[in-house]
């Protein structure tokens, strides 16, 4: 029983690690493309920098939230998976 709970936990934690890494990778690329367009817009028209900056920040927060969803799933995998009770007893003695 303890051995299966432990191997389940190992699988969950590995999945969490890879999951958030891939999400951060995609998020980085997406935000980089958005940022490039914003900086090009400011370079081409410096007077619009206020509006462009506000729009950029809103867009970055939206893209960031996709990575946050993956983070929440990773946290669920580490802390709230079905064998969490068994693992808690295992690690507490």
């Amino acid at each position: 029983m303890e051995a299966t709970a432990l191997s389940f936990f190992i699988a969950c934690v590995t999945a969490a690690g890879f999951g958030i890494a891939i999400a951060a990778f995609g998020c980085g690329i997406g935000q980089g493309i958005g940022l490039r367009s914003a900086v090009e817009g400011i370079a081409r028209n410096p007077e619009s920098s206020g509006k462009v900056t506000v729009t950029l920040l809103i867009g970055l927060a939206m893209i960031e939230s996709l990575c946050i969803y993956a983070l929440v799933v990773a946290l669920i995998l580490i802390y709230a998976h079905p064998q969490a009770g068994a693992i808690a007893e295992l690690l507490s003695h």
Partner: protein
Amino acid sequence: MEHPYLFFVKLFEIIGLGDFAHHYPHVIYSWVVMAILIGFGFFAAKVVTLVPSKGQNVFEILISGLEEFAVGMTGEEGRWLTPLIATIFIYIATCNLLGLIPGFFPPTANLNTTASCALTVVVFTHIIGIKYHGAGYIKHFLGPVWWMVPIIFPIELIGHLARLLSLSFRLFGNMMGHELVLMILFGLAGAFFAPLPIMALGIFVALVQAFVFFLLSVMYFQSAMEHAH
């Protein structure tokens, strides 16, 4: 994960409600935020003059900024929404910033607080839709042509539920992630001021996330108020 030291939880322990305080720190800290906001509002509204003093000026900038931004997006007919969305912004911003004080826990780092804010916004969207369009509000969910209704209606319904999920999880994930990183850095290298850059980022994230919640609320209200396409 060791439990952090929380001032108000210790306070409640002294007066004997320790058990409640340990299980629901987000409730206690949302009371703290309410007390702070009501206190500020009370002192700000005491002396209201035509030529504003410094304190009144700060509040006028804040509230008129929020109101003009919202009215800029929804048009003049959206002006009556200002109390609700200004409250949402100020409450969430204060909740988020409270987490930066050592010994305080941000209420928005718990899914219950953020889900309650998101639920308010989503239910109010439907109230606005019914108020402005009556029974014709259902046309917002039915799509452009009548024979696509069996496909479009479930997709729109799921889209509305996804708004609830995305609003609550975005705010919760940002705040919880910030708290977790702070806890881990304190455990690793707290004596060397390692968490300080994360706290600086935390100020930025707190304000941006409150603004994004406010902006999305205004956009949802606006899409409920306009005519169906």
